[in-house]
């Protein structure tokens, strides 16, 4: 495939081509006009002269003084070699006889005035009548005359036109070249700007010429398409990762559970087991299992594989359980962080127990992590007539303002070497899945309060009992 021609070269070729054609056309037309116009003018002059001469010499002619009239007309017309002016009778013979042979132009008398292109002459027959009603023809005044061509003037005019055209064409060519260079440079600058910051859609809108606005619009559309494709690819990549990570975690966790059970059965006979340590191991294995389930949930939701079925959960009960468990979180114990709760009874919402647990555990774990030694984490469940509000409040480090909009995105973590960055992302996913509304209040250095509001269900006693 040949390299495309530059716009400047293309325009130069166009300019040269059209200018040459224009020059040729102008010169051709001018020559035609110069050749034909004198004919036209000569026709008018001869016609006018013929009419005037026959009118002014009419009395002389009709009273017989034809020769004198003829001589005067020949003098007035400056008849030269190859030219003729004389009177003809109606039979086309000369009124004034002489020895010269009569040669008349092939133009017919009826034509009045006509052109003899070959001999470069104009020929006219001006009829003369005896009477005013033009009934009795006396004869004709015949004029056959070269017309004067001012070649010097024509040459000057041609030169003036030619040089004028050349000057105009040169100016046009130079101006066009400069314009095209400017246009090319401007387009190059714009393209460079786009390539340096392709994600900035404002760059696409700043097209330098209205003529390329459609291109800018198309590029903007492409950018949007690319962004969307990137987002899809990113999400799909993340989901695949989650799936494999969750799968990889669940297998060793299952083995850990079996091993821990075997240790309890066999060790009870052989060792004295620290009961609290065993319970803690169970809790952590359970948490690992929950994390793995969370990852699977995210993956399934990402690919749209989520069941529409949604069981009712006693939020008050589940929140209390998790708060109790979180008191034994190793981090909380290690850093002397207290976990308290204040829970209104009989608050029911439409959310699976596991999902609710994952959500609250994640939030509590984050609060514990964000708290300093001796910090406090408060878990509240507050029921209103229409909703249930679950609050996890700490007095920890708080979240900087520039991070507040990002903390619910996947991969964002305050513990780069320890966390997966999926905790709050999972919280947000679950909220959205079950019509929850997520509120974040935080101030750097003072603490964070996260509130989740779910629609409240009115549950009869037998139903509430069945879920316990």
């Amino acid at each position, binding site marked *: 495939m040949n390299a495309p021609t530059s716009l400047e070269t293309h325009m130069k070729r166009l300019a040269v081509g059209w200018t040459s054609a224009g020059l040729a056309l102008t010169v051709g037309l001018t020559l035609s006009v110069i050749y034909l116009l004198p004919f036209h003018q000569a026709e008018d002059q001869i016609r006018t002269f013929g009419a005037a001469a026959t009118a002014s010499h*009419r*009395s002389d002619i*009709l*009273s*017989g003084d034809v020769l004198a009239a003829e001589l005067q007309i020949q003098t007035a017309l400056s008849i030269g070699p190859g030219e003729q002016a004389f009177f003809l009778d109606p039979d086309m013979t000369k009124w004034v006889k002489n020895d010269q042979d009569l040669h008349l132009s092939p133009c017919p008398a009826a034509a009045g005035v006509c052109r003899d292109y070959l001999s470069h002459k104009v020929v006219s027959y001006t009829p003369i009548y*005896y009477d005013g009603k033009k009934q009795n023809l*006396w004869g004709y005044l015949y004029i056959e005359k070269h017309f004067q061509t001012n070649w010097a003037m024509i040459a000057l005019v041609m030169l003036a036109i030619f040089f004028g055209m050349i000057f105009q064409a040169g100016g046009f060519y130079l101006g066009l070249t400069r314009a095209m260079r400017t246009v090319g440079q401007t387009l190059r600058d714009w393209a460079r700007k786009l390539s340096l910051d392709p994600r900035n859609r404002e760059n696409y809108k700043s097209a330098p010429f209205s003529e390329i606005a459609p291109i800018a619009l198309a590029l903007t559309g492409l950018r949007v398409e690319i962004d969307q494709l990137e987002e899809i690819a990113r999400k799909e990549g993340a989901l695949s990762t989650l799936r494999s990570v969750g799968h990889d975690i669940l297998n060793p966790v299952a083995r850990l559970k079996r091993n821990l059970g075997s240790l309890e059965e066999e060790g009870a006979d052989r060792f004295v087991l620290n009961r609290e340590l065993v319970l803690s191991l169970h809790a952590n294995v359970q948490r690992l299992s929950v994390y793995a389930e969370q990852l699977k949930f995210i993956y399934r939701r990402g690919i749209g594989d989520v069941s529409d079925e949604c069981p009712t959960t006693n939020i008050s009960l589940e929140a209390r359980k998790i708060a109790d468990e979180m008191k034994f979180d190793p981090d909380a114990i290690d850093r002397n962080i207290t976990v308290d709760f204040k829970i209104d009874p009989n608050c029911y919402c439409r959310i699976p127990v596991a999902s609710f647990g994952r959500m609250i555990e994640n939030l509590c774990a984050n609060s514990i992590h964000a708290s300093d030694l001796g910090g406090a984490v408060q878990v509240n469940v507050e029921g209103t007539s229409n909703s249930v509000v679950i609050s996890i409040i700490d007095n920890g480090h708080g979240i900087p303002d520039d991070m507040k909009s990002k903390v619910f995105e996947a991969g964002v973590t305050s513990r780069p070497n320890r966390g997966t960055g999926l905790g709050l992302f999972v919280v947000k996913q679950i909220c959205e899945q079950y019509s929850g509304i997520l509120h974040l209040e935080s101030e750097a250095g003072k603490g964070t309060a996260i509130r989740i509001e779910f629609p409240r269900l009115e549950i009869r006693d037998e139903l509430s009992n069945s879920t316990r």
Partner: protein
Amino acid sequence: MTILRTYKAIPDKIDPAHILTMADTELSSALSATLVSFNDDRGLISALAERWTISEREIRFTLRSQLKWSDGLAVHASQYKAALLRAKRLYQSDLKALFDHVEAIEAPDERTLVFITKGPAAESGVVLKLSEPMYGLVALDTKGELELKRTVGPYYVKERSKEQLTLALNTNWINFTPGIPEIVEMRTAVGAAGAISDFANEKWANLVSGHSIVDGETMSTFRTNGFHIWHRNFDRLFALFPSKKFATKGGAEALKYLATKVDRAAVMKGLTGFTNAEQYFPRGYILWSQIGPTFGHAKKPEKLEKIRMISLETYKGLPFLHRLVRFMEEIGFHVSLEFIKVTDLNSHLKAQDYEILAAGVAVADPNFEGAISFWVEREPPLVPSGIAPHDFAEQSRKARALRSSRERAESMKGILIRAQEAGYVLPLFHFSSLSVSRPEVDLSSIPNTDETIDFSKVRIKK
């Protein structure tokens, strides 16, 4: 559809072949027709002749077919020949311009009229001269007498009494078209002074002609009341013509002296319609000369008898002649002024019973040869001749004998210049023929190139 025309005096004798006054010209044009005529641009066109050929010594006219007299009888070429021979017989001296060139006239058949010329026919100017109304076709009775109740012109004489002349339209006329006034009635004017000035008092008339020297107030009244005014441009000359006796016996010197002294502007003070005449012919006319007259040092004659100056009654009401007489007396002349009737002019010319004739004459005649011949060759002439170099009649005859029309014109240009320089004529001012009609009579179709009012071109508004 009637033209009611007043004249200062209806001519006693009406003969289209004999023209002395503008009234004669008018009547001649109305009662005869010529072989050739002029169009509105003064170009020659055919009239009674359909066409003509000119050979070495012969001009052969072919009359129109179906040419008829006013009474419906056919016209024969022999009748035209007879009319021309009659004119030649009666008015030889006035018609020299034509007949001096013509050897014979023949009518070989009913439509052919042949003029055998004395010199080369093409250079004779005969065709041009035949456009003059005095060479028109008139009817003659069996005795050869003029018969005006039968014409080929636009009108024929219907009735004639002492007080009134009535012309009726000839529907057989070659240029007859509907709309031409059917009747022309003519009466002698009531007023004693200039006809134009008296027009307001002529209750009966709707058309009058005269000269353009009219006081401004009268002209203003005509224009205000929607009257039509027609005039030619300075086609007439007012001059002092000495009698031959006076001119040859010192009078020429007196006129020459007067020419160097006369203050034309003072003489014409308060009048309009004229221009001072430095030459006999007006500027633009073929005989006008680039080189005007020179008088050198003119001496006042030592001894002069009392000068009897006669003029026409037409000019009686105007002050300029009285002023001229006063001026002449101031420089030492003794002058008696007397006004005569225009009808008596010819008899005074013949009697030569005056020293100076102060009169206006038409000079812009397209037939220049006829004109110059009329001034100097007719008997008695208006411009007299003396001995060489003042033999102007002889000079005119010699000039007329030249071969080409152009040569004749060049030669004739100087004759009246020389007459002026010699004191044989003193031009005073040029003026115009003028006609005025009441609003219902339209003169706008008459070109200024016409010599007089052609009745057939007048239109009456309905």
